[in-house]
């Protein structure tokens, strides 16, 4: 499937980059960070967040339920993924990630050469407070910083609030549509040769 999707003609951005601290609409102080490696403490905190996640808000089978399946899922996609985590009082309360769309992540030379799949989850008690929008923008900022240009996602077709959110930041429908709506965004390159230390 790689390389087959329709992307917008014009790049979106620039987007803010983590780390940042914002106040949400409930007056809570929310800290957004991009862990360098998605392992150890960062991973453990996000696993804990997903064990608290209300399964009625699952989308297309993720996140899985049960700590072991959650850990297994995150470890499987974790190593080569790009992550941002939002915290309140130290606890992870929202997580957004990009996973490379390739059969062989170890063969990635430049992150801009491949497409990245996006997903974002916000704990129920923190939804409708502007955190998702901020986290999404910071993930795209982080993505741009590390040389990613093409990002896509699927969203359930009837999930209008989510589709509206993605459209606001620059995602457009790719035309591939069944029960899921596929959307894509083009990020401006970092202006360098894509081979700097932010690249891999």
């Amino acid at each position: 499937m790689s390389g087959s999707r329709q992307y917008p003609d014009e790049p979106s951005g620039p987007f803010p980059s983590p780390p940042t601290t914002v106040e949400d609409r409930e007056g809570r102080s929310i800290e957004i960070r991009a862990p360098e490696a998605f392992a150890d403490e960062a991973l453990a905190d996000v696993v804990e967040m997903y064990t608290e996640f209300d399964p009625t808000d699952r989308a297309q089978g993720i996140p899985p339920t049960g700590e072991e399946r959650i850990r297994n899922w995150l470890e499987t996609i974790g190593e080569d993924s790009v992550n941002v985590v939002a915290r309140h009082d130290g606890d992870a309360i929202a997580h957004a990630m990009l996973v490379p769309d390739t059969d062989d992540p170890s063969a990635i030379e430049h992150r801009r050469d491949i497409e990245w799949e996006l997903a974002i989850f916000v704990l129920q008690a923190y939804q409708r407070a502007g955190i998702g929008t901020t986290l999404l923008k910071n993930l795209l900022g982080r993505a741009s910083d590390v040389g990613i240009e093409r990002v896509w996602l699927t969203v359930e077709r009837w999930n209008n609030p989510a589709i509206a959110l993605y459209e606001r930041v620059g995602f457009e429908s790719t035309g591939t549509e069944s029960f899921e709506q596929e959307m894509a965004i083009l990020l401006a390159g970092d202006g360098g040769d894509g081979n700097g230390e932010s690249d891999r």
Partner: protein
Amino acid sequence: MNVLLGLGGSDESVKTLRRTIDRTREVGDDLTIAVLDKPESKRSQDEMYQQALDALDEGDITDVAVEKLEGDPGSALVNYAEQGEYDQLVIGGGTLSPMGKIQLGPITEFVLLNAPTTVKLVR
């Protein structure tokens, strides 16, 4: 039970073929296989047709009709199902995105929304 299996040319279809043959052997269902015309898929219609015959052979199952259906895969399969007396229509149950999201394609959606029979999605 009278079962109609619809096959495209993806890995998902190969898995669905294998599972359905295993199930047919266990319970002694009557099976018909329809191989769909899906030019963009990994295996051609002819390759998939041959793969179905080989799998039936290996499974030692006889009396199975294997047909090639021309035209739009979803509607061709549903039309075929309507012309026979099938209790169940079996198709592949979706692929996983890199993220692990379950994705159902347009053919699956068409079949689910249009088939007059029970539809089984094989995962």
